[in-house]
């Protein structure tokens, strides 16, 4: 019992040390903090884009897939409500939905999907290698492929906010409520 408590304390202290290093959740890799967002993908119009193309805007980024019936629509709804909640300041934010399902999410599929969630939401997709590189830079895991004969996709459930100069401003992990996201946006937007 006491051993378990000490172990818990040690884990907590270890976690705090990690957080202290970057100021962010340990799920956020240090290079994402140092370098900001980096990706080479295609937007839902089929144009090749990189993170640098969005410099000057705040970026709010979610990774998911369009065939997702439960988690992604609710995450995007939370994003939309929080953006609406901060009012005019939301105009500086470019929301991005990065699909990890390169097999099914073509630019055309994403174009049809994103317009349901926010008038300015941009869907991004790319080759398997491009998505792998992007996910690696964000330090997140995903999986696509057959599980017991069915094509399934697993993905992270985080939101990332980057500033106009590209720096990571905030990380909103799985479980973040709309109110928390809205407060986080309000804190960082001018």
């Amino acid at each position, binding site marked *: 019992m006491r051993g378990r408590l000490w172990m818990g304390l040690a884990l907590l202290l270890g976690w705090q040390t990690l957080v202290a290093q970057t100021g962010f959740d340990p*799920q956020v890799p240090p290079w994402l903090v140092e370098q900001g967002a980096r990706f080479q993908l295609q937007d839902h119009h089929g144009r090749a884009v990189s993170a640098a193309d969005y410099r000057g805007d705040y970026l709010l980024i979610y990774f998911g897939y*369009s*065939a*997702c*019936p*439960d*988690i992604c*629509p*609710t995450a*995007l*709804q939370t994003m*939309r*409500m929080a953006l609406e909640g901060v009012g005019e300041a939301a105009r500086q934010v470019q929301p991005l939905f990065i699909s990890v399902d390169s097999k099914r999410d073509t630019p055309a*599929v994403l174009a*049809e*999907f994103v317009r*349901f*969630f926010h008038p300015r939401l941009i869907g991004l997709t790319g080759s398997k290698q491009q998505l792998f590189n992007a996910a690696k830079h964000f330090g*997140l*895991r*995903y*999986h696509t492929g057959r599980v017991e004969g069915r094509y*399934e996709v*697993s*993905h*992270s*459930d985080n939101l990332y906010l980057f500033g106009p100069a590209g720096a990571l401003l905030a990380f909103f992990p*799985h479980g973040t409520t709309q109110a928390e996201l809205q407060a986080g946006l309000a804190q960082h937007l001018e």
Partner: protein
Amino acid sequence: MRVGRGVILLLLWLSAPALVAAESRIEVSEPWARASAGARPNGAVYLRLIQRGTRADRLLGASTSVARAVEIHESLMRGGMMRMRPVASLALVPGEVVTLRPRGWHLMLRGLTQPLREGQRLRLRLEFQHAPARDVEVPILGVGAMGPNGKAVGERP
């Protein structure tokens, strides 16, 4: 008189199993589905189930004309990833409320034969282990709906 008493005893004997046997009476409330964001392959239905009877039962599955298959799914976080775990059935214990809600349990409509359009309804047949099958009219809400009547199901104020 003797005959009358015999008849009453016989009737009592015949009706005894019905008097003592546990019954399954499933209440289904607040069903809703999320509209498709375009031509999507899958959809989700949410609802609340309560076993009002005295017998433990199970939701075994469901079917609808608008999807190839319906599966009982749980969304869960594992190793930093969200995934959907299909389960064979859902336990319905007397008196216990089972709420299928966004980011928890849902009935996944796999292989939609048509997009689910907001404002329309779909018909879903629920199959139970003991209770008779139940047809439910499911209203289709917006793509970003979190619950019926604009509220999140099961959330306390």
